[in-house]
């Protein structure tokens, strides 16, 4: 008799496609998406004719939609949707694909995300900044004055609250940036590969204090796709299967009033334990973490919420070197969004697939049987978690 959460253990990620990423110009987001899908299908040892489901995700630049199916020449799809959950989308795509496969709706579903916000001679930060000046109506005008006007400003307020409450320091956040750059230096795809020091972090300019430039992710062009199919079929394809052991989402909907945990605890506190319970594991069983890292602080609060350290101890945990190469909990082993590339939840998911397969090259972690992947969107508003395993779940 199957349990209600049995669907997850039947699915596996069997293909991964990553395009060129970074300041790559002359291609639209749809172009990147199409290429990522083709790469992922080929990586799996499948043909485009085998694909019967497509779940697309569009970034800040827009331009990726269900028309991608036609552009790719896919025919008679049994599932076709645009999933839009900001940074939690990739986890949601895989979760939905697993449900659909378990339910017999489709057999071979490609999940893709692509974005092309970078243009020649435009500052990358402007992709996410509202224009100043002009006029605004009603409470939108009040919000322009009151802020936060950018995601960075929202995360800066959240990070300051964590600092106020738990004594977290900028240097502790810096340890996350430094450790991830160490990982990136071993990743040929990473955009930033030059090692940095804590002094570099502290000397980097404020974007929105208490967040330095080196606390912030980059903005990238590119596309990533994964192919999801049944665990049984996964055994007979080209790549080592990456089995889905558990998945969950939590969208906390903070009440901004006295007693709110905003900035101190996120949706990860529910999503993470739920996904690990489905997988039948605890944090002690996890070999490698790929954590959504739009900001260093996001990594810190997510690891706390997932239970990899006590609440409030994330700063000391990061400063201990646990997350960096050689540490007890290898985290963001490709360099993450801070150092490698920024394609929302596909950044951590793609690196998890690489690590669980054992294809990380110089950055491959020694033990890679179980990986935890997080997705996060808004200002800690939308959260997804995946637990991936190298073997079918026991």
């Amino acid at each position, binding site marked *: 008799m199957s349990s209600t959460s049995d669907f997850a253990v039947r699915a596996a990620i069997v293909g991964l496609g990553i395009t060129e990423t970074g300041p790559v110009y002359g291609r639209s987001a749809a172009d990147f998406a199409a290429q990522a899908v083709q790469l992922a299908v080929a990586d799996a040892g499948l043909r485009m004719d085998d694909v019967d489901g497509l779940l697309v995700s569009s970034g800040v630049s827009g331009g990726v939609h269900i028309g991608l199916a036609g552009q790719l020449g896919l025919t008679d799809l049994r599932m076709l949707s645009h999933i839009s959950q900001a940074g939690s989308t990739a986890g949601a795509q895989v979760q939905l694909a697993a449900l659909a496969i378990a339910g017999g709706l489709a057999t071979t579903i490609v999940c893709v995300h692509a974005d092309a916000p970078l243009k020649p001679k435009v500052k990358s930060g402007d992709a996410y900044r509202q224009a*100043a000046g002009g006029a605004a109506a009603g409470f939108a005008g009040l919000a322009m*004055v009151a802020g936060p006007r950018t995601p960075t400003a929202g995360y800066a*307020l959240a990070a300051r609250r964590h600092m106020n409450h738990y004594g977290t320091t900028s240097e502790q956040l810096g340890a996350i940036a430094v450790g991830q750059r160490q990982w990136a230096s071993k990743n040929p795809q990473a955009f930033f590969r030059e090692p940095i020091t804590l002094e570099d972090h502290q000397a980097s300019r404020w*974007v*929105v*204090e208490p967040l330095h430039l080196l606390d912030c992710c980059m903005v990238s062009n590119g596309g990533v796709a994964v192919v999801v199919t049944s665990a049984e079929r996964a055994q007979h394809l080209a790549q080592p299967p990456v089995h889905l052991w558990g998945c969950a989402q939590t969208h906390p909907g903070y009440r*901004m*009033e006295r007693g709110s945990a905003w900035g101190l605890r996120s949706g990860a506190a529910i999503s993470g334990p739920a996904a690990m319970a489905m997988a039948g594991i605890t944090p002690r069983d996890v070999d490698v973490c790929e954590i959504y890292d739009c900001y260093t602080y996001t990594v810190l609060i997510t690891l706390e919420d997932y239970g990899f350290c006590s609440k409030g101890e994330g700063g000391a945990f990061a400063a201990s070197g646990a997350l960096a190469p050689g540490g007890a909990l290898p985290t963001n082993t490709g360099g993450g969004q801070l150092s490698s590339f920024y394609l929302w939840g596909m950044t951590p998911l793609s690196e998890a697939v690489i690590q669980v397969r054992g294809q990380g090259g110089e950055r491959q972690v020694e033990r890679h049987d179980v990986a935890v992947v997080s997705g996060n969107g808004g200002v800690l508003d939308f959260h997804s978690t995946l637990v991936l395993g190298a073997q079918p779940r026991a």
Partner: protein
Amino acid sequence: MSDFTIERNEASAPFFDAAREGRLLIRRCTVCGRLYPPQQRRCVDGEPLEWVPATGAATLISWAVDHGAAVAPDLLSAAGDGSVIGVVELEEGPWMNAALPGVDPTQLRDGMPMRVEFAVFGEAVPVFLPA
């Protein structure tokens, strides 16, 4: 520098009328009495909200210094490099995002008492300063 202005609309008119007179209004559920910040449209139970006065006393929950282009010169910090924004907890319980214009961010402390002031950008808007 920009000359940013706010244009009122129907939903915000009572709020900006009161702000022009130096009074901060917040929202209260007509059924259960729960309080909300000014931009809230409905109670979580779905009931309509009404305007009620707040004292303007608050405590500081968090703050940040945005070094991007300021919305208006009046919003710059004491040192003039960046605009200080914050989250305050009104005495009545709701939180508000607010500009903290002209303050020295190094003097800000978790939980410090704050008081409302009003700054005019076409309409008067609440800003908060150390009490």
